[in-house]
């Protein structure tokens, strides 16, 4: 296992240089790898599998809801299906999606490191994720669970007859996996930055991941212990969460949401980091208000810890605490709006080009805007009394988590796909898919705002007939959305076989990761880069700005850091 060439001569192009994908092909070298890039790819494959599982469950839900009666599934089965959808999508897709795949792959590249600080811990986190995933699949195979993804007590502890314990262990393991990822990112970002890579030269993607890691480290243990208490409660009937025994079910909700609300930001913050990268690149402009965007990530992460109670306005928690939570929830809108306004300002007078990653990014902005603003409705206590547990809530969080996080994930995958695989995908198909997803998404979830406002409660298979129109619309949209999601699966995989070879920097972007080969060599950079330029030094009129298509790669752009014959890094300020 020790035969990787440590050093290559960057000038000898006679034989193809080994990259992280092809230096070895054995299964052992993939499954026991410490390479953050390979682990990122392992995560990409695993989260995609869980996305498919969760997606199939979602389609079952939509098909069932075509008719007002429960004719496809029994009510009990329906409960299990929407629970499976929520649990799989949240714990096994959304939370690890961007951090564990793109974050794992890109953070060391972006900061100029050879690897994450703890490669073995990184591998361990993937294995723990797989163990958790296996538990989740087993729980599904044995008949699933009917508690919803929130496991509210005392239903889950006393009455539910599903595989609650198995599912909880699944979530517990997934949580530990993300704790390890978080620890790794924090230490890496603190300690592994290349010379000259100061905090304010970091790409916003890295800032966003730092904020995300904070949430993973500070929040996840709380839900871990809460779930353990729930297991103890269910198996021994302790009574801590059971009002009949003098316990308090609201305590469970407090402890659950203390993590699970910040967890929403685990899903969206890395997405915001991705969007910052894409918008800057395809506007050929420095991100407007870099430090504001950077600190707004931290602000969202920290403020996100003080708003958990807005999930509990109707539970009988203290009214005064409810008011505080309501106000604090409004305050989260401030850093979120800072981000959106700064992206919009970056677009303003930029040289905007509409490549597929940019389409996803613009789609993200629109959908996140709607998702965020409807969040303000829900954080208003009085309005929330009416909207609590209706499809309005469902639509709101899908706009943020699907319209936001998954659009960003797909945008990021498209943006960095050439870097990750060394292949270009079919750009036209990618554009069609991006538009299909955008249209399909809105068709699916916008009707849910309306039907929710009219009073359709979530988690019900049976509903009054007058809601059927909206549900049919929603299911039609979901079909389109599903096809849209399937398309990248087809053309991205196809690109691995027949895609054009990607140049090192197909988009003319200036991030440090684009200075590595595509795909990167096992040690990322041939020499340790020395960073002398600010983040997003795009030259709107200059050479980098003249770039006019993803396939017109210019390999010469690749830079040797400190090399005697190397060109200056792209976007290097002339006289700084």
């Amino acid at each position, binding site marked *: *296992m*020790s035969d*990787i060439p*440590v050093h290559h001569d960057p000038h000898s192009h006679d034989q193809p240089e080994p990259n992280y994908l092809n230096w070895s092909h054995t299964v052992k*070298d993939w499954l*026991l*790898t*410490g*390479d953050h890039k390979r682990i990122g790819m392992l995560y990409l494959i695993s989260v995609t599998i869980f996305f498919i599982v969760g997606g199939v469950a979602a389609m079952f839900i939509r098909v069932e809801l075509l008719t007002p009666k429960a004719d496809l599934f029994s009510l009990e089965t329906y409960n299990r299906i929407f629970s499976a959808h929520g649990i799989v999508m949240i714990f096994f897709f959304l939370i690890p999606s961007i951090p564990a795949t793109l974050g794992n792959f890109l953070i060391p590249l972006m900061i100029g*490191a*050879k*690897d994450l*600080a*703890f*490669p*073995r*811990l990184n591998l361990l986190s993937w294995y723990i994720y797989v163990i958790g995933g296996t538990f989740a699949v087993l729980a599904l195979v044995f008949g699933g669970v009917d508690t919803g993804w929130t496991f509210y007590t005392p239903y889950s502890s006393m009455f539910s007859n599903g595989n609650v314990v198995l599912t909880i262990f699944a979530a517990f393991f997934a949580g530990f996996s993300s*704790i390890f990822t*978080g*620890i*790794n990112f*924090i*230490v890496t970002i*603190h*300690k*592994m930055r290349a010379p000259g890579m100061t905090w304010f030269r970091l790409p916003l993607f890295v800032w966003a991941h730092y904020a995300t890691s904070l949430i993973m*480290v*500070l*929040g*996840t*243990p*709380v839900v*871990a*212990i*809460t779930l*353990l*208490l729930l297991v*103890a409660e269910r198996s*021994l*009937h*302790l*009574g*801590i969460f059971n009002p009949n*025994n*003098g*316990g*308090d079910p609201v*305590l469970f909700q407090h*402890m659950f949401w*203390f993590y699970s609300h910040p967890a929403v930001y685990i899903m969206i913050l890395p997405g915001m980091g991705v969007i910052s990268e894409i918008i800057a690149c395809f506007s050929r402009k420095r991100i407007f208000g870099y430090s504001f965007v950077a600190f707004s990530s931290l602000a969202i992460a920290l403020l996100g810890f003080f708003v958990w109670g807005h999930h509990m306005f109707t539970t009988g928690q203290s009214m005064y605490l409810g008011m505080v939570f309501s106000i604090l929830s409004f305050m989260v809108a401030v850093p979120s709006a800072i981000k959106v306004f700064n992206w919009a300002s970056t677009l303003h007078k930029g040289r905007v080009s509409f490549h597929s990653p940019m389409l996803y990014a613009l789609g993200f902005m629109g959908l996140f805007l709607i998702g965020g603003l409807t969040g303000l409705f829900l954080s208003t206590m009085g309005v929330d009394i009416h909207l609590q547990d209706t499809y309005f809530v469902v639509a709101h969080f899908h706009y943020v988590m699907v319209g936001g996080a998954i659009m960003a994930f797909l945008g990021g995958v498209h943006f960095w796909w050439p870097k990750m695989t060394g292949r270009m995908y079919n750009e036209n198909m990618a554009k069609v898919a991006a538009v299909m997803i955008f249209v399909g998404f809105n068709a699916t979830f916008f009707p849910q705002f309306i039907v929710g406002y009219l009073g359709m409660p979530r988690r019900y298979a049976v509903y009054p007939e007058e809601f059927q129109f909206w549900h049919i619309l929603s299911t039609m949209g979901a079909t389109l959305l599903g096809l849209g999601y399937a398309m990248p699966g087809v053309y991205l995989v196809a690109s691995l076989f027949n895609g054009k070879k990607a140049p090192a920097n197909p988009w003319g972007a200036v991030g440090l990761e684009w200075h590595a080969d595509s795909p990167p060599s*096992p*040690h990322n950079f041939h020499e*340790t880069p020395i960073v002398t330029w600010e983040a997003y030094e795009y030259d709107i009129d200059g050479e980098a700005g003249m770039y006019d298509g993803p396939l017109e790669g210019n390999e010469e752009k690749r830079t040797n850091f400190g090399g005697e014959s190397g060109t200056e890094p792209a976007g290097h300020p002339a006289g700084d």
Partner: protein
Amino acid sequence: MSVETLHGEPVQSDDPHQAFAVHYKERKQQDESYIVGMWTFLVTEIMFFGALFLAYIVFRNIWPGELSEISREHLNVKLGFINTLILLTSSLTMAMAVQSAQRKIEGRVYFFMFATIALALCFMGVKFVEYSKKYNENHVPGPLFHYVAEGAETKATVAGVEVVKTEGSTEVAHEAEHGRKFSLEPVKGSATSSAQHAEIFFSLYFIMTGLHGIHVILGVLVMLIIIVMMWFKSPLVADFMPIEMTGLYWHFVDIVWIFLYPALYLAHPDLQKFLHG
């Protein structure tokens, strides 16, 4: 642990105290990464135990008098004191083990590591005594749980025959252990609720001290593994960093107990007066 390598590549120095994995730039960077990483992990542990303390505070707040009463009657302050003493001492020996490793005095490392393990086992021994007493009194939450407040009279129905029993009579416990059908009805109205309070108190007691105990056992296992690896001259433990990491973990386990002891064992009735107003 300290020779963390990238794809299993060899470390860059023959001297274990200078070696570092290839993805680091220098030894200092690796050392600080490990220490910060360990502290970040301990942050998660703080939140982990913190959540349990939160649950405990919530119930202490709901029934301030009852819980401290149960604690005073059923937890042994002296055993808790001895255990605190043992753990604090083990922290000292652990700190000495780390120092010896830093100074590369191998004999002392063995001595202090074994001393720490011995103290940890004493701690678990005392815990075993406490737990088995609770078990014999049916104070372990679960199907066998049975609690009647001190001196409270209950009307126990055993096999259809009503008998008045007082707490402490072994007969009731005996019946319960053998799973015979019997029910206890409170004579005083408060008996059921006091049993509920007791069940929640003992639940939290067992979960908190139990998770702490699991941490102690894990610490012992890690120390044993390090000792065995040192014995076989494994290059992985040739350096002081693995022992320093273990030390950080062990001191954290000690800190948890420093808070557990007053919170669980030293419940003073004064608190009761305060919260009852």
